[in-house]
């Protein structure tokens, strides 16, 4: 299989469903060697099976992105399997619950910040040294339009603002060493997470009533940000929301 990422190793967290799975499949289709990590091992295995069926190469593994040991092992196993790490999509995230009802649930706050914010920080912590060793790389972090506005539960909105903040800080730090770090900010996307959040008729995030983005729409933006064509883009939160923030 040849493509723009042939010979590159790409790591995707939360790769067992939704946007993560779509992006893992897209990287593999474009030639990358893919590590598909997920907190649900069977879901990661399914993604790997889909990639293998399409003649791609994929390492499936279990990782809870809020745990340093899991994140260290995820990167180490990728290096052991592929000998390099060129691309990382820190995608894994969880919902903050229903805005207005779950805003002050302390356990929820701790868990959302642990996965959505600290999980991405841990990703950077273990991915960047390997990319420095390899001479460079591209990282995309999963933010949200909740990282740019006040929509969403308090914990979720706080975690996504944190993602954009650390994306910018890390981008300025490592731009001179050929590592680019950007974020994607989707609006409402047709994923299992959105389906769970809107079960029983609950209102979803802005844009839920209009056409939803497909996971493939977000995957395309991630591949774009990881390609050599974006070599001068870093620290940018790329909005993929169907125009919700514009008006």
């Amino acid at each position, binding site marked *: *299989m*040849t*493509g*723009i990422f042939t010979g590159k190793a790409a790591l995707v967290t939360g790769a067992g469903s939704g946007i993560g799975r779509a992006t893992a499949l897209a990287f593999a*289709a*474009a*030639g990358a060697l893919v590590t598909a990590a997920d907190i649900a091992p069977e879901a990661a295995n399914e993604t790997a099976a889909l990639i293998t069926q399409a003649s791609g190469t994929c390492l499936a593994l279990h990782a809870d992105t809020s745990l340093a040991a899991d994140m260290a092992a995820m990167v180490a196993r990728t290096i052991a399997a592929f000998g390099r790490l060129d691309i990382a999509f820190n995608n894994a995230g969880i919902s903050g619950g229903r805005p207005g009802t779950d805003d002050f649930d302390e356990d929820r706050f701790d868990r959302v910040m642990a996965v959505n914010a600290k999980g991405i920080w841990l990703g950077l912590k273990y991915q960047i040294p390997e990319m420095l060793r390899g001479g460079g790389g591209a990282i995309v972090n999963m933010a949200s339009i909740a990282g740019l506005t006040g929509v969403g539960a308090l914990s979720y909105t706080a975690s996504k603002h944190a993602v954009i903040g650390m994306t*910018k800080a890390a*981008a*300025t*730090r490592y*731009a*001179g060493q050929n590592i680019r770090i950007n974020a994607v900010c989707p609006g409402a996307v047709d994923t299992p997470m959105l389906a769970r959040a809107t079960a029983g008729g609950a209102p979803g995030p802005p844009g839920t009533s209009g056409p939803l*983005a*497909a996971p493939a*729409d977000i995957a*395309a*933006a991630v*591949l*774009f940000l990881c*390609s*050599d*064509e*974006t*070599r*001068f*883009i*870093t*620290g*940018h939160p*790329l*909005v*993929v*929301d*169907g*125009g919700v*923030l*514009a*008006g």
Partner: protein
Amino acid sequence: MSTEGLQIFSLAGRVAIVTGGNRGIGLAIAEGLAKAGATIVIAARDRQAGAHAAAGLGPNALFIETEITRPDSCLALVRATESRFGRLDILVNNAGIMRAARAEDTGLADWQAVLDINLTGAFLCAQAAYPALRRQRAGKIINLGSLASTFGTAASAAYACSKGGIVQLTRSLAVSWGSDNIQVNAILPGYIESDMTRRAETERPGAFDAKRARTPAGRIGLPSDIAGAAIFLASDASSFITGTSITIDGGYSVQI
């Protein structure tokens, strides 16, 4: 962008107008779109440079002499494009000028020339293109902003106002024409080595070194750094992206 293995980034069969596509960032964008498969129309004032640029963009590329500050000229541009190629899919509003002068020294004629070309010209071209894009129920408009869309600049208040206006034009057209399946986005290049900035460097040396020192990536941008984003925003890969701006500046704007 290499489109090998990635059909959604392909522009095969699409027709694109690039204003000011005869040099600098505009030419780099025209070359990128052509490489991705699009047929290019260069719209510019300079007949010789325009014809020369079109000649380098493949056998089908066309130069159309255009004065983007005149509505009739913009309409003629779109009409000529459609009559030659039968369609219009992509409009890149790139043409722009800079008249360096401090605010207290800016004459009304310079203020108006900058706003007319950089902002009103983009609006008039978009307005002229709209019927063609609406008819196809698909279209892409890409507007060129600047770091001066985000930051103020003492070098030219007129330029900053025109480029700030580009961001609001982008949002407004995105909201207006979203239901027609027309996506409107902006590209905000950082400091790019072009005719415009080289001229400024000759007049007042030092800007290149100062910008390089402040840019986390440690270099000034090249026109070719901008082409990939234009391909992305012109392609089906960005079909859910509208009303936003993509900054391409090596991290300049995230480090104050």
